[in-house]
Protein backbone atom coordinates (compact mmCIF):
# COMPACT_ATOMS: atom_id res chain seq x y z
CA UNK A 1 0.00 0.00 0.00
CA UNK A 2 2.79 2.39 0.99
CA UNK A 3 4.43 1.93 -2.39
CA UNK A 4 1.34 3.53 -4.00
CA UNK A 5 1.18 6.51 -1.63
CA UNK A 6 3.40 9.45 -2.53
CA UNK A 7 6.06 9.87 0.13
CA UNK A 8 5.70 13.62 -0.29
CA UNK A 9 2.66 15.46 -1.55
CA UNK A 10 2.52 19.25 -1.75
CA UNK A 11 -0.56 21.20 -2.82
CA UNK A 12 -1.46 24.88 -3.29
CA UNK A 13 1.55 26.05 -1.33
CA UNK A 14 1.65 29.83 -0.80
CA UNK A 15 4.20 31.84 1.14
CA UNK A 16 3.97 35.60 1.53
CA UNK A 17 6.59 37.83 3.11
CA UNK A 18 4.68 41.07 3.65
CA UNK A 19 3.55 42.21 0.20
CA UNK A 20 5.85 39.80 -1.60
CA UNK A 21 4.48 36.42 -2.66
CA UNK A 22 7.57 34.19 -2.71
CA UNK A 23 5.72 30.94 -3.42
CA UNK A 24 2.46 31.09 -5.33
CA UNK A 25 0.33 27.94 -5.59
CA UNK A 26 3.07 25.33 -5.83
CA UNK A 27 2.10 21.65 -5.90
CA UNK A 28 3.85 18.38 -6.76
CA UNK A 29 4.09 14.75 -5.72
CA UNK A 30 7.08 12.56 -5.04
CA UNK A 31 6.81 8.76 -5.07
CA UNK A 32 9.06 6.64 -2.81
CA UNK A 33 12.54 6.31 -4.31
CA UNK A 34 11.84 8.93 -6.99
CA UNK A 35 13.83 12.08 -7.69
CA UNK A 36 12.23 15.43 -8.43
CA UNK A 37 14.09 18.55 -9.56
CA UNK A 38 13.03 22.07 -8.64
CA UNK A 39 14.70 24.33 -11.19
CA UNK A 40 14.83 28.10 -10.95
CA UNK A 41 16.95 31.21 -10.58
CA UNK A 42 17.20 33.65 -7.67
CA UNK A 43 13.77 34.93 -6.69
CA UNK A 44 12.01 31.90 -8.21
CA UNK A 45 10.84 30.67 -4.79
CA UNK A 46 12.70 27.35 -5.07
CA UNK A 47 14.63 27.74 -1.83
CA UNK A 48 11.57 28.99 0.08
CA UNK A 49 9.69 25.92 -1.15
CA UNK A 50 12.52 23.68 0.09
CA UNK A 51 12.58 25.44 3.46
CA UNK A 52 8.84 24.93 3.86
CA UNK A 53 9.26 21.21 3.13
CA UNK A 54 11.90 20.99 5.85
CA UNK A 55 9.77 22.95 8.31
CA UNK A 56 12.17 25.90 8.42
CA UNK A 57 9.43 28.24 7.13
CA UNK A 58 5.69 27.98 7.72
CA UNK A 59 3.56 28.26 4.59
CA UNK A 60 0.94 31.05 4.50
CA UNK A 61 -1.46 28.45 3.11
CA UNK A 62 -1.39 25.06 1.43
CA UNK A 63 -0.57 21.58 2.64
CA UNK A 64 2.44 19.30 2.86
CA UNK A 65 1.74 15.58 3.30
CA UNK A 66 4.59 13.29 4.32
CA UNK A 67 3.83 9.59 3.78
CA UNK A 68 0.17 10.52 3.46
CA UNK A 69 -0.08 12.49 6.70
CA UNK A 70 -0.25 16.27 7.04
CA UNK A 71 2.72 17.88 8.74
CA UNK A 72 1.80 21.03 10.58
CA UNK A 73 2.73 22.85 13.75
CA UNK A 74 6.00 23.68 15.38
CA UNK A 75 5.67 21.57 18.51
CA UNK A 76 8.68 19.41 19.42
CA UNK A 77 6.68 16.29 18.56
CA UNK A 78 5.67 17.63 15.15
CA UNK A 79 9.21 18.74 14.30
CA UNK A 80 10.69 15.41 15.34
CA UNK A 81 8.10 13.53 13.30
CA UNK A 82 8.90 15.61 10.23
CA UNK A 83 12.67 15.34 10.66
CA UNK A 84 12.39 11.57 10.99
CA UNK A 85 10.88 11.40 7.50
CA UNK A 86 12.61 14.28 5.73
CA UNK A 87 16.12 15.71 6.00
CA UNK A 88 17.69 18.68 4.22
CA UNK A 89 21.18 19.34 2.79
CA UNK A 90 22.39 22.89 2.12
CA UNK A 91 24.87 24.41 -0.32
CA UNK A 92 27.53 24.90 2.33
CA UNK A 93 27.02 22.57 5.28
CA UNK A 94 29.79 24.29 7.23
CA UNK A 95 27.34 26.38 9.25
CA UNK A 96 25.33 23.33 10.27
CA UNK A 97 28.21 21.54 12.01
CA UNK A 98 29.16 22.32 15.59
CA UNK A 99 32.80 23.50 15.26
CA UNK A 100 33.73 21.89 18.62
CA UNK A 101 32.41 18.42 17.73
CA UNK A 102 34.15 15.87 15.58
CA UNK A 103 32.42 14.86 12.38
CA UNK A 104 31.57 11.46 13.88
CA UNK A 105 29.94 13.12 16.91
CA UNK A 106 27.88 15.38 14.62
CA UNK A 107 26.77 12.38 12.56
CA UNK A 108 25.75 10.57 15.76
CA UNK A 109 23.62 13.48 17.02
CA UNK A 110 20.37 12.85 15.04
CA UNK A 111 20.61 9.11 15.82
CA UNK A 112 20.88 9.89 19.54
CA UNK A 113 17.87 12.23 19.27
CA UNK A 114 15.57 10.03 17.20
CA UNK A 115 16.62 6.57 18.34
CA UNK A 116 17.31 7.07 22.07
CA UNK A 117 16.99 3.36 22.79
CA UNK A 118 19.99 2.46 20.65
CA UNK A 119 23.03 1.46 22.75
CA UNK A 120 26.25 3.46 22.52
CA UNK A 121 28.02 0.58 20.80
CA UNK A 122 25.24 0.17 18.22
CA UNK A 123 25.23 3.91 17.60
CA UNK A 124 28.99 3.96 17.05
CA UNK A 125 28.68 1.02 14.68
CA UNK A 126 25.95 2.85 12.75
CA UNK A 127 28.12 6.01 12.50
CA UNK A 128 31.07 3.99 11.21
CA UNK A 129 28.80 2.35 8.64
CA UNK A 130 27.46 5.77 7.53
CA UNK A 131 30.91 7.33 7.18
CA UNK A 132 32.02 4.34 5.14
CA UNK A 133 28.88 4.57 2.99
CA UNK A 134 29.65 8.18 2.00
CA UNK A 135 33.36 7.49 1.52
CA UNK A 136 34.81 9.26 4.56
CA UNK A 137 37.83 7.77 6.31
CA UNK A 138 37.95 7.05 10.05
CA UNK A 139 40.45 9.88 10.31
CA UNK A 140 38.02 12.35 8.68
CA UNK A 141 35.38 11.16 11.16
CA UNK A 142 37.66 12.08 14.04
CA UNK A 143 38.35 15.58 12.69
CA UNK A 144 36.56 18.85 13.45
CA UNK A 145 34.60 20.28 10.47
CA UNK A 146 37.20 22.99 9.72
CA UNK A 147 39.79 20.36 8.79
CA UNK A 148 37.59 18.90 6.05
CA UNK A 149 37.42 20.07 2.44
CA UNK A 150 34.11 21.30 0.98
CA UNK A 151 33.47 17.95 -0.68
CA UNK A 152 34.22 16.02 2.52
CA UNK A 153 31.90 18.27 4.53
CA UNK A 154 29.11 17.63 2.02
CA UNK A 155 29.70 13.89 2.41
CA UNK A 156 29.51 14.32 6.19
CA UNK A 157 26.23 16.26 5.86
CA UNK A 158 24.80 13.44 3.74
CA UNK A 159 25.94 10.82 6.28
CA UNK A 160 24.29 12.76 9.10
CA UNK A 161 21.05 13.16 7.15
CA UNK A 162 20.94 9.44 6.31
CA UNK A 163 21.57 8.28 9.88
CA UNK A 164 17.90 8.02 10.84
CA UNK A 165 16.91 6.52 7.48
CA UNK A 166 14.59 9.33 6.29
CA UNK A 167 12.30 8.70 3.33
CA UNK A 168 13.06 12.04 1.62
CA UNK A 169 16.22 14.09 1.21
CA UNK A 170 15.82 17.74 0.18
CA UNK A 171 19.05 19.02 -1.40
CA UNK A 172 19.27 22.79 -1.88
CA UNK A 173 22.06 23.63 -4.38
CA UNK A 174 23.98 20.84 -2.67
CA UNK A 175 26.73 20.54 -5.31
CA UNK A 176 26.80 24.16 -6.56
CA UNK A 177 29.84 25.26 -4.54
CA UNK A 178 31.99 22.23 -5.33
CA UNK A 179 34.78 21.84 -7.88
CA UNK A 180 33.70 19.93 -11.00
CA UNK A 181 35.72 16.83 -10.12
CA UNK A 182 34.29 16.80 -6.57
CA UNK A 183 30.76 17.55 -7.79
CA UNK A 184 30.91 14.38 -9.89
CA UNK A 185 31.92 12.37 -6.83
CA UNK A 186 28.94 13.65 -4.81
CA UNK A 187 26.51 13.07 -7.72
CA UNK A 188 27.79 9.51 -8.11
CA UNK A 189 27.40 8.99 -4.35
CA UNK A 190 23.81 10.29 -4.45
CA UNK A 191 23.05 7.95 -7.38
CA UNK A 192 24.23 4.88 -5.52
CA UNK A 193 22.55 5.87 -2.23
CA UNK A 194 19.19 6.18 -3.94
CA UNK A 195 19.69 2.86 -5.70
CA UNK A 196 20.72 1.10 -2.48
CA UNK A 197 18.34 2.66 0.07
CA UNK A 198 15.27 3.66 -1.96
CA UNK A 199 15.37 7.18 -0.54
CA UNK A 200 13.59 9.92 -2.55
CA UNK A 201 15.19 13.25 -3.51
CA UNK A 202 13.89 16.77 -3.97
CA UNK A 203 16.84 18.32 -5.80
CA UNK A 204 16.74 22.12 -5.86
CA UNK A 205 19.15 23.62 -8.39
CA UNK A 206 19.76 26.28 -11.02
CA UNK A 207 21.94 23.85 -12.97
CA UNK A 208 19.97 22.02 -15.66
CA UNK A 209 22.79 19.62 -16.50
CA UNK A 210 23.01 18.45 -12.90
CA UNK A 211 19.20 18.25 -12.63
CA UNK A 212 19.12 16.15 -15.78
CA UNK A 213 21.63 13.76 -14.26
CA UNK A 214 20.05 13.32 -10.83
CA UNK A 215 16.26 13.58 -11.37
CA UNK A 216 13.43 11.73 -13.19
CA UNK A 217 10.86 14.53 -13.13
CA UNK A 218 11.19 18.27 -12.65
CA UNK A 219 9.29 21.50 -12.12
CA UNK A 220 10.56 24.83 -13.45
CA UNK A 221 9.81 27.78 -11.17
CA UNK A 222 9.72 31.49 -11.96
CA UNK A 223 8.48 34.34 -9.75
CA UNK A 224 7.05 31.85 -7.24
CA UNK A 225 5.05 29.84 -9.76
CA UNK A 226 5.63 26.55 -11.53
CA UNK A 227 5.77 27.40 -15.24
CA UNK A 228 6.55 23.92 -16.57
CA UNK A 229 6.53 20.36 -15.23
CA UNK A 230 7.10 16.86 -16.54
CA UNK A 231 9.77 14.24 -17.17
CA UNK A 232 13.13 15.96 -16.88
CA UNK A 233 14.29 14.52 -20.19
CA UNK A 234 11.16 15.71 -22.02
CA UNK A 235 11.42 19.21 -20.55
CA UNK A 236 15.03 19.50 -21.72
CA UNK A 237 14.46 18.03 -25.17
CA UNK A 238 11.22 19.85 -25.93
CA UNK A 239 10.67 22.81 -23.59
CA UNK A 240 7.19 24.32 -23.86
CA UNK A 241 7.42 27.48 -21.78
CA UNK A 242 9.44 30.43 -23.15
CA UNK A 243 11.22 30.74 -19.79
CA UNK A 244 12.40 27.12 -19.93
CA UNK A 245 13.70 27.79 -23.45
CA UNK A 246 15.58 30.87 -22.22
CA UNK A 247 17.12 28.85 -19.37
CA UNK A 248 18.23 26.10 -21.74
CA UNK A 249 19.70 28.42 -24.36
CA UNK A 250 21.55 30.34 -21.62
CA UNK A 251 23.75 27.33 -20.93
CA UNK A 252 27.14 27.74 -22.63
CA UNK A 253 27.89 25.07 -25.25
CA UNK A 254 30.29 24.91 -28.20
CA UNK A 255 28.87 27.28 -30.83
CA UNK A 256 26.83 29.11 -28.17
CA UNK A 257 24.30 31.40 -29.86
CA UNK A 258 23.99 34.55 -27.76
CA UNK A 259 21.63 36.16 -30.28
CA UNK A 260 19.26 33.28 -29.70
CA UNK A 261 19.37 33.96 -25.95
CA UNK A 262 18.39 37.58 -26.68
CA UNK A 263 15.50 36.37 -28.91
CA UNK A 264 14.33 34.02 -26.13
CA UNK A 265 14.35 36.94 -23.69
CA UNK A 266 12.19 39.04 -26.04
CA UNK A 267 9.79 36.10 -26.56
CA UNK A 268 9.48 35.69 -22.80
CA UNK A 269 8.85 39.41 -22.23
CA UNK A 270 6.23 39.36 -25.00
CA UNK A 271 4.43 36.37 -23.46
CA UNK A 272 3.62 38.23 -20.25
Amino acid at each position, binding site marked *: MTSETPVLSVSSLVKRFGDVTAVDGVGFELMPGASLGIVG*ESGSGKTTTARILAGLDEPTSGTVLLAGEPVTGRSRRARLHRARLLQMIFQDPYGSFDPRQTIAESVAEPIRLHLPDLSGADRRARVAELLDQVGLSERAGGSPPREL*SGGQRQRAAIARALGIRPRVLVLDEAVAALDVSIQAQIL*TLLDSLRRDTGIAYVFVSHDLAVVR*HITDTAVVMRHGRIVERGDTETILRDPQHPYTRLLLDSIPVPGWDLDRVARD*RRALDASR
Partner: protein
Amino acid sequence: MTVLEKESAIRPDALGIDGLTLGIGSGASAVPLLDGVTVRVGRGETVGLVGESGSGKSLTARAALGMFPRGARATGAVTVAGVDVLAAGRAALRDLRRTRASMIFQDPRAAINPVRRVGDYLTEGLRARGVPSREAAATALELLEQVGIRDPRGALRRHPHEFSGGMLQRVVIAGALSTEPDVLLADEPTTALDVTTQAEVIALLKEMQRTRGTGMLFVTHDLDLAAAICDRVYVMYAGRIVEEAAGTALFSAPAHPYTKALLEASPPVHGDRTEIKAIKGRPRSLAEAPSGCAFRDRCPLAGDDCAASVPATRAHGTSAVACVRPEEVAR
Protein backbone atom coordinates in the same frame (compact mmCIF):
# COMPACT_ATOMS: atom_id res chain seq x y z
CA MET B 1 46.51 36.89 -42.72
CA THR B 2 43.53 38.59 -41.08
CA VAL B 3 43.56 42.24 -40.10
CA LEU B 4 43.89 41.21 -36.50
CA GLU B 5 46.91 39.02 -37.15
CA LYS B 6 48.55 41.71 -39.24
CA GLU B 7 48.08 44.21 -36.46
CA SER B 8 49.40 41.88 -33.79
CA ALA B 9 52.44 41.20 -35.95
CA ILE B 10 53.48 44.82 -35.59
CA ARG B 11 52.13 45.75 -32.15
CA PRO B 12 53.05 43.82 -29.00
CA ASP B 13 50.58 41.38 -27.43
CA ALA B 14 48.02 42.79 -25.01
CA LEU B 15 49.40 40.44 -22.35
CA GLY B 16 52.43 38.20 -22.28
CA ILE B 17 53.26 36.03 -19.27
CA ASP B 18 56.39 33.99 -19.86
CA GLY B 19 57.69 31.28 -17.54
CA LEU B 20 56.19 32.93 -14.45
CA THR B 21 57.25 31.17 -11.27
CA LEU B 22 55.88 32.43 -7.98
CA GLY B 23 56.56 31.40 -4.40
CA ILE B 24 56.37 32.67 -0.84
CA GLY B 25 59.24 32.43 1.62
CA SER B 26 62.60 30.77 1.04
CA GLY B 27 64.56 27.67 2.03
CA ALA B 28 62.72 24.83 3.77
CA SER B 29 59.62 26.93 4.56
CA ALA B 30 59.16 28.08 0.94
CA VAL B 31 55.66 27.57 -0.49
CA PRO B 32 55.56 27.32 -4.30
CA LEU B 33 52.46 28.82 -5.95
CA LEU B 34 53.07 28.91 -9.70
CA ASP B 35 55.61 27.05 -11.82
CA GLY B 36 56.64 28.22 -15.28
CA VAL B 37 53.27 29.65 -16.33
CA THR B 38 53.18 30.96 -19.88
CA VAL B 39 50.05 32.75 -21.13
CA ARG B 40 49.63 35.01 -24.14
CA VAL B 41 46.67 37.25 -25.00
CA GLY B 42 46.74 38.89 -28.41
CA ARG B 43 44.98 42.18 -29.15
CA GLY B 44 41.24 41.66 -29.42
CA GLU B 45 41.62 38.02 -28.47
CA THR B 46 39.56 36.20 -25.81
CA VAL B 47 41.66 33.72 -23.89
CA GLY B 48 40.34 31.38 -21.22
CA LEU B 49 42.20 30.33 -18.09
CA VAL B 50 40.41 27.32 -16.60
CA GLY B 51 41.07 25.39 -13.42
CA GLU B 52 39.69 24.13 -10.12
CA SER B 53 40.48 25.40 -6.60
CA GLY B 54 44.19 25.89 -6.00
CA SER B 55 45.14 25.72 -9.67
CA GLY B 56 46.62 29.24 -9.55
CA LYS B 57 44.34 30.75 -12.20
CA SER B 58 43.49 33.87 -10.18
CA LEU B 59 47.12 34.35 -9.09
CA THR B 60 48.12 34.27 -12.76
CA ALA B 61 45.52 36.88 -13.75
CA ARG B 62 46.51 39.15 -10.86
CA ALA B 63 50.16 38.90 -11.88
CA ALA B 64 49.27 40.84 -15.02
CA LEU B 65 48.50 43.84 -12.79
CA GLY B 66 51.61 43.33 -10.67
CA MET B 67 49.40 42.20 -7.79
CA PHE B 68 51.24 39.49 -5.87
CA PRO B 69 50.59 37.93 -2.45
CA ARG B 70 52.58 39.60 0.37
CA GLY B 71 56.15 38.35 0.49
CA ALA B 72 55.93 36.58 -2.86
CA ARG B 73 58.93 36.26 -5.15
CA ALA B 74 58.29 36.21 -8.87
CA THR B 75 60.63 35.17 -11.66
CA GLY B 76 59.97 35.06 -15.39
CA ALA B 77 58.43 37.87 -17.41
CA VAL B 78 55.08 39.65 -17.34
CA THR B 79 54.42 42.20 -20.08
CA VAL B 80 51.26 44.25 -20.60
CA ALA B 81 51.17 46.22 -23.87
CA GLY B 82 54.95 46.41 -23.86
CA VAL B 83 55.30 47.39 -20.17
CA ASP B 84 57.57 45.15 -18.06
CA VAL B 85 55.33 44.55 -15.02
CA LEU B 86 57.88 42.77 -12.81
CA ALA B 87 60.37 45.64 -13.18
CA ALA B 88 57.80 48.40 -12.86
CA GLY B 89 57.87 50.69 -9.83
CA ARG B 90 54.90 51.81 -7.80
CA ALA B 91 54.05 54.79 -10.03
CA ALA B 92 54.40 52.77 -13.23
CA LEU B 93 52.12 50.05 -11.83
CA ARG B 94 49.51 52.62 -10.85
CA ASP B 95 49.65 54.05 -14.34
CA LEU B 96 49.37 50.53 -15.81
CA ARG B 97 46.23 49.74 -13.79
CA ARG B 98 44.74 53.12 -14.59
CA THR B 99 45.21 53.02 -18.35
CA ARG B 100 46.33 49.69 -19.83
CA ALA B 101 44.88 46.88 -17.76
CA SER B 102 41.53 46.58 -15.96
CA MET B 103 40.18 43.78 -13.83
CA ILE B 104 36.67 42.64 -12.96
CA PHE B 105 35.86 40.18 -10.21
CA GLN B 106 33.17 37.70 -9.24
CA ASP B 107 31.47 39.97 -6.73
CA PRO B 108 30.77 43.45 -8.11
CA ARG B 109 29.86 44.67 -4.61
CA ALA B 110 33.41 44.04 -3.43
CA ALA B 111 34.84 46.07 -6.32
CA ILE B 112 32.78 49.21 -5.90
CA ASN B 113 32.67 51.67 -3.00
CA PRO B 114 29.16 51.31 -1.48
CA VAL B 115 28.92 54.91 -0.20
CA ARG B 116 29.82 56.60 -3.48
CA ARG B 117 27.47 57.16 -6.37
CA VAL B 118 27.80 55.11 -9.54
CA GLY B 119 28.58 58.32 -11.47
CA ASP B 120 31.63 58.97 -9.27
CA TYR B 121 32.80 55.39 -9.72
CA LEU B 122 32.62 55.69 -13.50
CA THR B 123 34.30 59.08 -13.78
CA GLU B 124 37.15 58.65 -11.29
CA GLY B 125 39.34 56.68 -13.70
CA LEU B 126 38.80 59.24 -16.44
CA ARG B 127 39.34 62.20 -14.11
CA ALA B 128 42.59 60.64 -12.93
CA ARG B 129 43.75 60.64 -16.54
CA GLY B 130 43.04 64.36 -16.75
CA VAL B 131 39.72 64.21 -18.61
CA PRO B 132 37.67 67.36 -17.76
CA SER B 133 34.71 66.59 -15.48
CA ARG B 134 32.00 67.55 -17.97
CA GLU B 135 33.50 65.28 -20.62
CA ALA B 136 33.98 62.45 -18.09
CA ALA B 137 30.31 62.68 -17.08
CA ALA B 138 29.24 62.49 -20.73
CA THR B 139 31.43 59.41 -21.24
CA ALA B 140 29.99 57.77 -18.11
CA LEU B 141 26.47 58.33 -19.39
CA GLU B 142 27.37 56.87 -22.78
CA LEU B 143 28.95 53.81 -21.11
CA LEU B 144 25.86 53.12 -19.00
CA GLU B 145 23.74 53.27 -22.14
CA GLN B 146 26.07 50.83 -23.89
CA VAL B 147 25.90 48.27 -21.07
CA GLY B 148 22.10 48.38 -21.12
CA ILE B 149 21.30 50.17 -17.85
CA ARG B 150 17.76 51.53 -17.89
CA ASP B 151 17.52 55.28 -17.16
CA PRO B 152 21.30 55.85 -17.37
CA ARG B 153 21.01 59.50 -16.32
CA GLY B 154 19.24 58.52 -13.09
CA ALA B 155 21.66 55.62 -12.58
CA LEU B 156 24.61 58.03 -12.33
CA ARG B 157 23.12 59.45 -9.11
CA ARG B 158 22.24 56.10 -7.56
CA HIS B 159 24.27 54.03 -5.08
CA PRO B 160 25.47 50.44 -5.68
CA HIS B 161 22.89 48.89 -3.29
CA GLU B 162 20.10 50.11 -5.56
CA PHE B 163 21.26 47.74 -8.34
CA SER B 164 20.84 43.97 -8.66
CA GLY B 165 24.01 41.87 -8.92
CA GLY B 166 23.69 41.54 -12.69
CA MET B 167 23.09 45.26 -13.22
CA LEU B 168 25.96 46.21 -10.91
CA GLN B 169 28.31 43.86 -12.77
CA ARG B 170 27.36 45.78 -15.94
CA VAL B 171 28.32 49.02 -14.18
CA VAL B 172 31.67 47.49 -13.18
CA ILE B 173 32.26 46.33 -16.77
CA ALA B 174 31.49 49.87 -17.96
CA GLY B 175 34.02 51.20 -15.44
CA ALA B 176 36.67 48.66 -16.45
CA LEU B 177 36.35 49.56 -20.12
CA SER B 178 36.02 53.34 -19.60
CA THR B 179 39.77 53.83 -19.87
CA GLU B 180 39.99 51.76 -23.09
CA PRO B 181 42.52 49.29 -21.65
CA ASP B 182 44.70 47.01 -23.78
CA VAL B 183 43.75 44.02 -21.66
CA LEU B 184 40.74 43.15 -19.51
CA LEU B 185 41.27 40.56 -16.78
CA ALA B 186 37.94 38.97 -15.95
CA ASP B 187 38.10 36.71 -12.87
CA GLU B 188 34.92 34.57 -12.68
CA PRO B 189 32.88 37.68 -13.67
CA THR B 190 29.61 35.80 -14.08
CA THR B 191 29.94 33.00 -11.50
CA ALA B 192 27.71 34.74 -8.94
CA LEU B 193 25.02 35.58 -11.51
CA ASP B 194 21.94 33.63 -12.55
CA VAL B 195 22.37 31.60 -15.75
CA THR B 196 20.16 33.85 -17.87
CA THR B 197 21.90 36.96 -16.50
CA GLN B 198 25.27 35.33 -17.18
CA ALA B 199 24.36 34.91 -20.84
CA GLU B 200 23.40 38.59 -21.12
CA VAL B 201 26.53 39.84 -19.34
CA ILE B 202 28.72 37.60 -21.52
CA ALA B 203 27.04 38.92 -24.68
CA LEU B 204 27.71 42.45 -23.48
CA LEU B 205 31.32 41.72 -22.55
CA LYS B 206 32.02 40.15 -25.96
CA GLU B 207 30.40 43.04 -27.81
CA MET B 208 32.25 45.74 -25.84
CA GLN B 209 35.50 43.86 -26.28
CA ARG B 210 34.96 43.36 -30.02
CA THR B 211 34.21 47.01 -30.77
CA ARG B 212 37.20 48.22 -28.72
CA GLY B 213 39.68 45.52 -29.73
CA THR B 214 40.48 44.79 -26.07
CA GLY B 215 42.30 41.56 -25.26
CA MET B 216 40.53 39.56 -22.56
CA LEU B 217 41.83 36.96 -20.15
CA PHE B 218 38.74 35.12 -18.91
CA VAL B 219 39.38 33.21 -15.69
CA THR B 220 36.79 30.57 -14.82
CA HIS B 221 36.20 27.17 -13.25
CA ASP B 222 33.63 26.50 -15.99
CA LEU B 223 35.21 24.61 -18.88
CA ASP B 224 32.00 24.73 -20.92
CA LEU B 225 31.77 28.50 -20.60
CA ALA B 226 35.44 28.99 -21.51
CA ALA B 227 35.19 26.70 -24.53
CA ALA B 228 32.00 28.47 -25.68
CA ILE B 229 33.37 32.03 -25.68
CA CYS B 230 37.17 31.82 -25.95
CA ASP B 231 39.43 31.76 -29.00
CA ARG B 232 42.02 29.81 -27.02
CA VAL B 233 41.89 28.13 -23.61
CA TYR B 234 44.64 27.32 -21.11
CA VAL B 235 43.87 24.57 -18.60
CA MET B 236 45.68 24.91 -15.26
CA TYR B 237 46.31 22.29 -12.62
CA ALA B 238 48.32 22.73 -9.40
CA GLY B 239 50.08 25.94 -10.42
CA ARG B 240 51.01 24.86 -13.94
CA ILE B 241 49.53 25.08 -17.43
CA VAL B 242 48.77 21.51 -18.52
CA GLU B 243 47.09 22.21 -21.86
CA GLU B 244 46.58 25.00 -24.36
CA ALA B 245 44.05 24.53 -27.15
CA ALA B 246 41.59 26.35 -29.38
CA GLY B 247 38.25 26.76 -27.57
CA THR B 248 36.45 24.59 -30.09
CA ALA B 249 39.10 21.84 -30.00
CA LEU B 250 38.95 21.27 -26.24
CA PHE B 251 35.69 19.34 -26.47
CA SER B 252 36.40 17.36 -29.60
CA ALA B 253 40.02 16.51 -28.87
CA PRO B 254 41.24 17.05 -25.30
CA ALA B 255 44.94 16.23 -25.18
CA HIS B 256 45.61 16.15 -21.43
CA PRO B 257 44.11 13.42 -19.22
CA TYR B 258 42.98 16.13 -16.77
CA THR B 259 41.07 18.05 -19.45
CA LYS B 260 39.42 14.84 -20.57
CA ALA B 261 38.58 13.91 -16.97
CA LEU B 262 36.99 17.32 -16.38
CA LEU B 263 34.82 16.90 -19.48
CA GLU B 264 33.74 13.42 -18.40
CA ALA B 265 32.95 14.63 -14.88
CA SER B 266 30.40 17.23 -16.00
CA PRO B 267 26.97 15.91 -16.98
CA PRO B 268 25.85 17.05 -20.46
CA VAL B 269 22.68 19.11 -20.83
CA HIS B 270 22.16 18.34 -24.54
CA GLY B 271 22.48 15.19 -26.60
CA ASP B 272 22.53 11.71 -25.14
CA ARG B 273 22.43 11.20 -21.43
CA THR B 274 25.86 9.81 -20.59
CA GLU B 275 27.36 8.42 -17.41
CA ILE B 276 29.58 10.87 -15.57
CA LYS B 277 32.96 9.69 -14.38
CA ALA B 278 34.18 11.14 -11.11
CA ILE B 279 37.89 11.94 -10.76
CA LYS B 280 39.30 10.28 -7.65
CA GLY B 281 40.96 12.44 -4.99
CA ARG B 282 40.72 16.21 -4.87
CA PRO B 283 42.32 19.11 -6.73
CA ARG B 284 45.76 20.05 -5.42
CA SER B 285 47.72 23.23 -5.06
CA LEU B 286 51.34 23.26 -6.27
CA ALA B 287 52.63 22.97 -2.68
CA GLU B 288 50.65 19.73 -2.11
CA ALA B 289 51.26 18.23 -5.52
CA PRO B 290 53.30 15.06 -6.04
CA SER B 291 56.67 15.25 -7.82
CA GLY B 292 56.76 14.96 -11.59
CA CYS B 293 53.34 15.39 -13.14
CA ALA B 294 51.08 16.92 -10.47
CA PHE B 295 48.02 15.07 -11.79
CA ARG B 296 49.60 11.61 -11.72
CA ASP B 297 48.01 10.51 -8.39
CA ARG B 298 44.54 11.07 -9.91
CA CYS B 299 45.32 10.10 -13.50
CA PRO B 300 44.03 6.80 -14.95
CA LEU B 301 46.90 6.73 -17.46
CA ALA B 302 49.77 7.44 -15.05
CA GLY B 303 52.86 5.25 -15.10
CA ASP B 304 56.27 5.27 -13.42
CA ASP B 305 57.67 7.66 -16.03
CA CYS B 306 55.17 10.35 -14.90
CA ALA B 307 56.98 10.66 -11.56
CA ALA B 308 60.42 11.23 -13.10
CA SER B 309 60.04 14.92 -13.96
CA VAL B 310 57.44 17.55 -14.78
CA PRO B 311 56.39 16.69 -18.36
CA ALA B 312 57.61 19.20 -20.94
CA THR B 313 54.99 20.97 -23.03
CA ARG B 314 54.76 19.57 -26.54
CA ALA B 315 52.52 19.84 -29.56
CA HIS B 316 49.84 17.20 -29.97
CA GLY B 317 47.12 17.62 -32.59
CA THR B 318 45.98 21.24 -32.24
CA SER B 319 46.98 21.40 -28.56
CA ALA B 320 50.14 22.14 -26.64
CA VAL B 321 50.14 19.66 -23.80
CA ALA B 322 52.27 18.82 -20.75
CA CYS B 323 51.82 15.06 -20.75
CA VAL B 324 54.11 12.18 -21.69
CA ARG B 325 51.38 10.14 -23.42
CA PRO B 326 48.75 12.41 -24.96
CA GLU B 327 48.21 9.86 -27.76
CA GLU B 328 46.40 7.66 -25.19
CA VAL B 329 43.95 10.45 -24.34
CA ALA B 330 41.35 9.78 -27.03
CA ARG B 331 37.75 10.62 -26.22
